């Protein structure tokens, strides 16, 4: 998606540096376990892409949906941020910013039993079917 830099590898060299060892070192020396995913301050990178990107409607809707869940007491923004870390380095870096938000919201609702996997699957299929029907409508 447009708001992520495609030049950045989703698996930053921190993972490689910790070693793809099959005999893990102790917790104290295992950087991968002790490195919190969102704690990126000080890592190097290439010059910035300063292109402006107007927020897409789905992104604004995602923002509102996640905030409404917080507003009505179903989670807090700090739980959301922690949930984004829980996704792990690859997803954290590899999907769009608001993709993280909505994935974490879905996971939280499932984890807490507020929705069931069946309900979510059925609803996704229903939404897809509606869009497919709309796409094939003959416009006058």
């Amino acid at each position: 998606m447009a708001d992520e830099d495609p030049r950045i590898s989703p698996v930053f060299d921190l993972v490689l540096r910790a070693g793809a060892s099959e005999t893990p070192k102790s917790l104290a020396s295992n950087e991968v376990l002790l490195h919190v995913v969102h704690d990126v301050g000080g890592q190097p990178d290439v010059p910035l892409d300063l292109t402006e990107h107007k927020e897409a409607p789905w992104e604004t809707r995602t923002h509102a949906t996640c905030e409404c869940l917080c507003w009505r007491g179903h989670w807090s923004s700090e739980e959301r941020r922690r949930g984004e870390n829980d996704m792990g380095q690859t997803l954290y870096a590899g999907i769009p910013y608001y993709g993280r938000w909505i994935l974490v919201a879905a996971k939280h609702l499932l984890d807490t039993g507020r929705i069931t996997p069946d309900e979510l699957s059925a609803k996704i299929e229903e939404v897809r079917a509606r869009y497919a029907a709309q796409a094939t409508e003959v416009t006058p």
Partner: protein
Amino acid sequence: MRRFKVGDRVTVLDKPTLFHTRTQSYCRGRTGVIVALRPDDWVIPEDEAWGRVDGRRLPCYMIRFQQGDLWPDYRGPATDTVELEIFENWLEPAKEAAQ
């Protein structure tokens, strides 16, 4: 009752943190000076991030670090700084003598 006041030099503890933190790795073990107080009734991230919305409320401080103290290879002017907010449970009085 706050443990620290503006002007105090403090060192950031380096506690093992898995999964989530809001005390950045780049300030762990580093020493800075408290330049401002923040409210003392914010729930700490160690509780809030895990769903304990009525968790521990601790004083928070705005701390100024010299860039040269944070990064061994910092090449900018010695006066450049970074300011971070850190909760009291992450702080101890500075280990080294004030300069």
